[in-house]
């Protein structure tokens, strides 16, 4: 069975390590925060100027000066730090964020990512996505393997305008966990009940299958 959004987030949470500074994009990536293993300290960065995002506020805690990059109201944990946007992206560009998790429309077998613009649709802008993908030491893309029409989003070459070139290292989709290698998408794990053939059929880009591909442990 393909994973749902929470399943993808749960699997990505297994990539976290104690002490990681992590930037989570909007959508599925945000859900990863719900699955941080107990006892592990992860510090979440919000690129609008906060290290140490806490849970959403209680109704009576809402503060308009305390929002995340998706403009949702949030809280700050003890030990948090606030700073301005130029400092925030100095952190990101300087490689100080251990892990960035973000969504994508398409990823290519060479690690290109398209995530911000669909020709013909209104363009809202790239926000911080281009900075994040160009600079993060480690990028995991959280995405559906195919679009609603069943067409693969893991391609030989992206068809949409790019967000970054050769930057994606790992993908966790509803069907599989894959590394992006110089040879293409290397299949690491299958979603529970999903076959290698299912994944092969859903992947347009070159899929490398070596040995037995284990099921995810979720």
């Amino acid at each position, binding site marked *: 069975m393909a994973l749902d959004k929470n399943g993808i987030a749960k699997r990505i949470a297994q990539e976290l390590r104690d002490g990681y500074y992590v930037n989570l994009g909007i959508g599925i990536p945000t859900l990863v925060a719900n699955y941080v293993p107990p006892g592990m300290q992860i510090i979440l960065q919000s*690129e609008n*100027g906060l290290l140490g995002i806490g849970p959403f506020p209680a109704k009576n805690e809402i*503060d*308009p000066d305390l929002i995340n990059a998706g403009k*949702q109201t949030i809280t700050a944990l003890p030990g948090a730090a606030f700073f301005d946007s130029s400092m925030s992206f100095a952190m990101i560009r300087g490689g100080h964020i251990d892990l960035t998790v973000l969504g994508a429309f398409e990823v290519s077998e060479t690690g290109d990512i398209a995530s911000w613009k669909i020709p013909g649709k209104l363009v809202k802008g790239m926000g*911080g996505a281009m900075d994040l993908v*160009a600079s993060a030491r480690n990028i995991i893309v959280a995405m559906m393997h195919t679009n609603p029409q069943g067409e693969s989003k893991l391609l030989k070459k992206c068809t949409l305008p*790019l967000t970054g070139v050769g930057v994606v290292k790992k993908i966790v989709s509803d069907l599989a966990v894959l590394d992006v290698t110089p040879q293409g998408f290397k299949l690491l794990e299958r979603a529970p009940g999903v076959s290698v053939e299912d994944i092969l059929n859903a992947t347009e880009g070159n899929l490398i299958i070596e040995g037995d591909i284990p099921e995810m442990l979720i």
Partner: protein
Amino acid sequence: MNKVVQNAIEAIRGIESQMTLMLGGFGLCGIPENCIAALAATDITGLTCISNNAGIDGFGLGMLLRRHQIEKMISSYVGENKEFERQLLSRELEVELIPQGTLAERIRAGGAGIPAFYVPAGYGTEVAEGKPVRQFGDKMYLEEQWLKADFSIVKAWKGDTNGNLIYRYVANNFNHAMAMAGKITIAEVEELVPVGALEPNHIHTPGVFVQRIFQGQNYEKRIEFATTRD
């Protein structure tokens, strides 16, 4: 030395049509509400506005958009605004989209006297069009140039009469860098205090960057997406 002005109307004196303005804020957080409202009450048009976002319909920069005062927006993200979309599609409005970190750094560079620098963001994308590309180590970078403004308009939490500013939480965002990059920088603050009332160790933006300051009124501080755990 007297940087203190009485209100937003006095603060925006000298802003003219066709000028380039920087306006602080991220979404509706930390925007200079008083000065935007004062600008919306003028006949100034043809503005180029450098601001991370473009407000929402009828609030923030949406107030200037509604009155067709903005000719060009330089931003990283411009969703959440129907009038904006309409003007963009009808080509009444020009938009230049810049990656958020590059935008912040170009603004800081304008304030810091650095005419150009290299960043990796946007390499290989349409953002790179027309920009020199250079390799450092094994990585490719774009050359980006500084941004400056005729006026920068920022919002802080507390300020003193020397122009020293302290922001509250993430309401800092672009305000600090923009304060550095204005030929004239206007700061509106929630609380204006005499010199000596702010701890000099806690200043975020030193007063040297601020030419005019006033205590704003009636801050609405609207919230775009109230999200609670309840």
